[in-house]
């Protein structure tokens, strides 16, 4: 992060407090660690994105003409693994959560600064393992590693990749633990639980899932490695194992993992909407508790991934019903965000555009969740492009819009610079349009019956595949824009004031960028979050 060269008048902040690569790689400042994460996570995002581009080029024609089937299978596998484990899961928590939670609760740092740095090193180590597997030839099991294909049949680097994800999991566990302890123990005087910003509530719920869920995927991957490496029969029926057991274990973590990706984005959106409506979010406690409800119920629905897997019919019915229950807290959030805009003072800033884009894409993603949770429909659309479209609306539409919205919202705080307003608004619109053009046709493809993970497909599916590939090119361009103008702003952007948006959170009361200690004096909190000055009060309901 090369910001302005310090002058006599430049006040000290966390960026210019120390120089040299060592001061970054050995830092214990949560803000600097967040920057370390930002750099690596961004690199993984573009790597995963590159694989997506290759997939979409290949699928523009029905025949397999760009790469052969083995390469294609490795492309979608590496795309999934990198995007899920090395981009989506760490993106908002490890970057924005890391940077902002101490600032928002009026603390000097996280509870365990050294563990925070350790988390980053573990994340990098896990990434290196995975990249090693990639360099050696990659892995072709899909990010789901279904057995017995992954343990007994695949001729690719399953163990190295599995170890990479296994190692990376500890990073998520430690970050979650750090957040939980920090939120419990480090709040400034007067910062009661119900004065916490919703961003913090969302991260608290996320951390719970990370701490409770990640060990399960770690154990599952370990069992998979044991079976593949030592032929201990756990999942392969030829060795006396049960292949469907693997799916239960895998989804017990991987369904809640979706909420690790989406809850922090919901937290971001709550902050942005409140700020650019200049009023408190409608139904603060409902939004806060819906995060907790999602985290809890999220652990009870894994079986909806197994409706056609030979799971019992009655188990299928229970999981279907529970999946509908977990949809309700999400619906509550959407209604509350929308209501916040009622009689507000709405400013269509760049972060607000992303937040509204989030609501739109998340709503479609959530509503199509009703389709796949319906047993009779899921039998037809599971393992087709319908599911691919559905989860991309949630995980890419939702989580990445939230991530980009958050980056744009707090960029002035993080870097002390403002970015180009026109470019950023333009890119938000391009991303929204490109996203829908990429993924909406995939719903239709899925209902028409095109299975996912198909390298070659019947020609009647081509029209919608071409639309999707065209959308992907727009989307890819849209993602490159922020990378360019944000980098540009680091050197040439105007200096950001402490509170460019007129927001009320504690993080806006310190300088931009903040000093290493975050606050000159520990703040004392005397009122609820989101106390914007308003006109006369009205009572609804």
């Amino acid at each position: 992060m090369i910001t302005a060269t310090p002058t006599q008048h430049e006040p000290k902040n966390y960026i210019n407090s120390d120089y040299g690569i060592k001061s970054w790689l050995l830092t214990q400042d949560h803000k600097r660690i967040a920057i370390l994460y930002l750099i690596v996570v961004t690199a993984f995002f573009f790597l995963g994105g590159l694989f997506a581009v290759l997939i979409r080029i290949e699928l523009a024609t029905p025949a397999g003409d760009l790469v052969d089937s083995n390469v294609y299978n490795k492309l979608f596998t590496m795309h999934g693994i990198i995007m899920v484990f090395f981009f989506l899961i760490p993106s908002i928590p490890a970057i924005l959560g890391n940077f902002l939670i101490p600032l928002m609760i009026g603390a000097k740092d996280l509870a365990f600064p050294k563990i925070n740095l350790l988390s980053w090193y573990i994340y990098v180590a896990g990434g290196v393992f995975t990249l090693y597997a990639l360099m050696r030839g990659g892995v072709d099991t899909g990010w789901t590693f279904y057995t017995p294909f992954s343990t007994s049949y695949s001729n690719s680097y399953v163990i190295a990749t599995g170890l990479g994800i296994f190692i990376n999991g500890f990073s998520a566990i430690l970050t979650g633990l750090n957040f939980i302890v920090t939120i419990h123990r480090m709040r400034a005087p007067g910062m009661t639980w119900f004065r916490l910003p919703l961003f913090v509530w969302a991260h608290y719920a996320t951390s719970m899932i990370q701490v409770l869920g990640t060990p399960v995927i770690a154990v599952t991957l370990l069992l998979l490695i044991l079976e593949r490496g030592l032929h201990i029969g756990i999942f392969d029926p030829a060795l006396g194992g049960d292949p469907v057991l693997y799916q239960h274990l895998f989804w017990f973590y991987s369904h809640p993992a979706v909420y690790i990706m989406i809850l922090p984005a919901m937290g971001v959106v709550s902050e942005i909407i409140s700020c650019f409506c200049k009023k408190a979010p409608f139904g603060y406690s409902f939004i806060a508790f819906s995060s907790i409800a999602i985290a809890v119920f999220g652990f009870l629905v894994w079986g909806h991934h197994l409706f056609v897997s030979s799971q019992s019919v009655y188990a299928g019915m229970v999981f279907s019903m529970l999946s509908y229950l977990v949809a309700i807290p999400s619906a509550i959030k959407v209604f509350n965000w929308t209501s916040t805009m009622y009689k507000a003072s709405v400013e269509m800033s760049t972060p607000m555009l992303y937040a509204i884009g989030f609501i739109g894409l998340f709503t479609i993603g959530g509503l199509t969740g009703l389709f796949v949770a319906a047993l009779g429909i899921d039998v037809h659309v599971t393992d087709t492009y319908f599911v691919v479209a559905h989860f991309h609306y949630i995980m890419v539409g939702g989580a990445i819009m939230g991530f980009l919205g958050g980056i744009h919202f707090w960029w002035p705080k993080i870097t002390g610079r403002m970015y180009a307003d026109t470019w950023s608004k333009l890119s938000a619109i391009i991303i929204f349009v490109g996203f829908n053009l990429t993924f909406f046709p995939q719903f239709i493809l899925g209902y028409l019956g095109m299975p996912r993970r198909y390298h070659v497909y019947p020609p009647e599916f081509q029209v919608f595949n071409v639309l999707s590939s065209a959308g992907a090119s727009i989307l890819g361009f849209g993602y490159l824009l922020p990378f360019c103008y944000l980098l540009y702003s680091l050197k040439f952007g105007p200096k950001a004031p402490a509170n460019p948006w007129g927001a009320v959170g504690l993080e806006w009361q310190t300088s931009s960028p903040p000093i290493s200690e975050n606050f000159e004096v520990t703040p004392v909190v005397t009122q609820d979050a989101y106390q914007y000055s308003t006109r006369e009060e009205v009572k609804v309901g």
Partner: protein
Amino acid sequence: MDSKSITFFPEQASSIAGTVDNLYLFLVLISAFFSLLIAGLIIYFAVKYRRRSDADMPVPAHGGLLLEITWSVIPLGISMVIFAWGASIFFTESRPPADSMEIWVTGKQWMWKVQHMEGQREINELHIPVGRNIKLTLTSEDVIHDFYVPEFRTKADVVPGRYTTEWFRPTKTGKYHIFCAEYCGTKHSGMVGAVYVMQPADYAMWLTNGGAQGSMSQRGEALFQQLGCVTCHQADGHGRCPTLVGLFGKPVEIQHGQVVNADASYIRESILYPQAKIVAGYEPIMPTFQGQVTEEGVQQLVEYVKSIGPKDTTGAGAPTPSPLTTGSQPGTAQQRATNPTAITVPGKR
């Protein structure tokens, strides 16, 4: 399959296709309503309450409990309707009717192998008569596959080491896709084929054209001799092993007083993993036949055992499976290896 005019639905070629499409359309309407509602409100609020000057101040609205309850309960109600509707379709999809015509399907990397009861075998093709209930019993030789026919709106995972089932009643003659829907390795997208739904007369003709050498149960009988099963499993029950006559579909008492149903999965398991369940009163002396008999051979043996099963299985005498009394799911697409299968009707052929 030329590129015809653009369509949003696969053909409706099975008895449940229309039902699934109806629920789908209902959901599309619900989704369109809520998407437009949210989008409309956001755009309306964004325009109406846009900030006109920096002095602009919002009017705070304090959360109304009534409002929160309303927008929790309405979605909950709607989603429970969807749940029940979807579950009822699923329940039908999971229970093959008793009069189903049975066909065996084996998946392997990367092809589908089909055996008809009459002995016809085909690869990557499935010929069936229109209007009949068809029950597929599926298994895999290697990894998990999934037998998917979009025009029938149904699919089922094909899992190694167990039998799963899938049923449909084709309502329209024609040629439809078979897709492998569960990722299974390099040529996953090449593990495709075609279902040919034919007029019953054409199907009968097709059956006679195959040059098949004996029905499945006849081949099973030959295997039974060839593998030496007959030396222990004697018909009169005097062998060292339990007789298989009249066994199929009946409850069997095994060690520790447990009782299992002698269904296809049980017979398959007894051939390949004979030590798994020992019939009460017998010694665990049976060797495994893994490696000596293919999955298709096992299927023929199952058909042979079925053919010497209880004679009266057409009605009351059959162990009518009831999910509520057995606590499992007879004859479902979700069948576990230990569950009883649906009753079969050997008298038909």
